[in-house]
């Protein structure tokens, strides 16, 4: 099925993602930042849907917006953020940091718009992605070609769980 009104939805979702991204890094209250980050994640999930990646969009919503952000909100409730809200929010080198990072962003955009190699690469026609069996194909890749990486990822998660418990426990 041909996509409908792609530019409209792209600009809507990317504007939403950028505005809530700015809110994430400027709010004083971490809970407000977390809620803005959830909005960014949902907008990005919409963009993944536009890019024919429904499985990644679902994982983004369930795992990121549903799992990781709940973890963040729990930790915000556990640590006492009341005192930090009354203090200075930005550190001493904020001006230098913003200048350097904006310079980096300009370099990114210059490279994307003027690089010959990248232009040649992006001229490639779009791949024929499966629209109805996306989850199935991703599953075949995960359990076939990327079997070893998948197992290593499970080991990484196990180590992270043990590490988080050890770190957060008062007395082991």
């Amino acid at each position, binding site marked *: 099925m041909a996509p409908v009104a792609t530019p409209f939805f792209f600009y809507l979702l990317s504007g939403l993602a950028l505005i809530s991204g700015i809110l994430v890094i400027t709010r004083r209250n*971490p809970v407000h930042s977390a809620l803005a980050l959830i909005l960014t994640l949902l907008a990005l999930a919409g963009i993944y849907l536009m890019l024919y*990646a429904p499985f990644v969009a679902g994982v983004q919503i369930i795992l990121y917006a549903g799992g990781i952000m709940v973890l963040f909100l729990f930790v*915000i409730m556990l640590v006492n953020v009341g005192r930090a809200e009354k203090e200075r929010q930005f550190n001493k080198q904020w001006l230098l940091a913003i200048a350097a990072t904006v310079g980096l962003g300009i370099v990114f955009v210059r490279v994307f718009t003027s690089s010959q190699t990248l232009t040649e690469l992006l001229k490639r026609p779009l791949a024929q992605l499966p629209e109805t069996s996306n989850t199935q194909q991703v599953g075949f890749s995960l359990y076939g070609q990327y079997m070893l990486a998948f197992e290593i990822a499970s080991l990484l998660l196990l180590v992270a769980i043990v590490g988080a418990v050890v770190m957060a426990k008062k007395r082991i």
Partner: protein
Amino acid sequence: MVPITPIHYLILAAALFTLGTIGVLTRRNVVIVLMSIELILNAVNLNLVAFSRMWGLQGQVFAIFVITDAAAEAAVGLGILIAFFRNKETVNVDEVDLLKW
């Protein structure tokens, strides 16, 4: 309207990456620094999925691995934050100087 090309997605990802880097470098609250790291990882994911539009499914599989990494990183980072808060009663990064010589 101009049709949306892969360059549009790359520039959006670069903007999100820049926002996340600004958050990491300028904020004092550790929780918001960790959230900015999530923004950076999402920018990378957007790049991977945008390239997978042209090269096939491998980019989407890599995006799932990046999400797994983000979950592990958030769990360990927040565990460290809780341990740190228990010792020093603060969540400001510039007061984390126990290892400073």
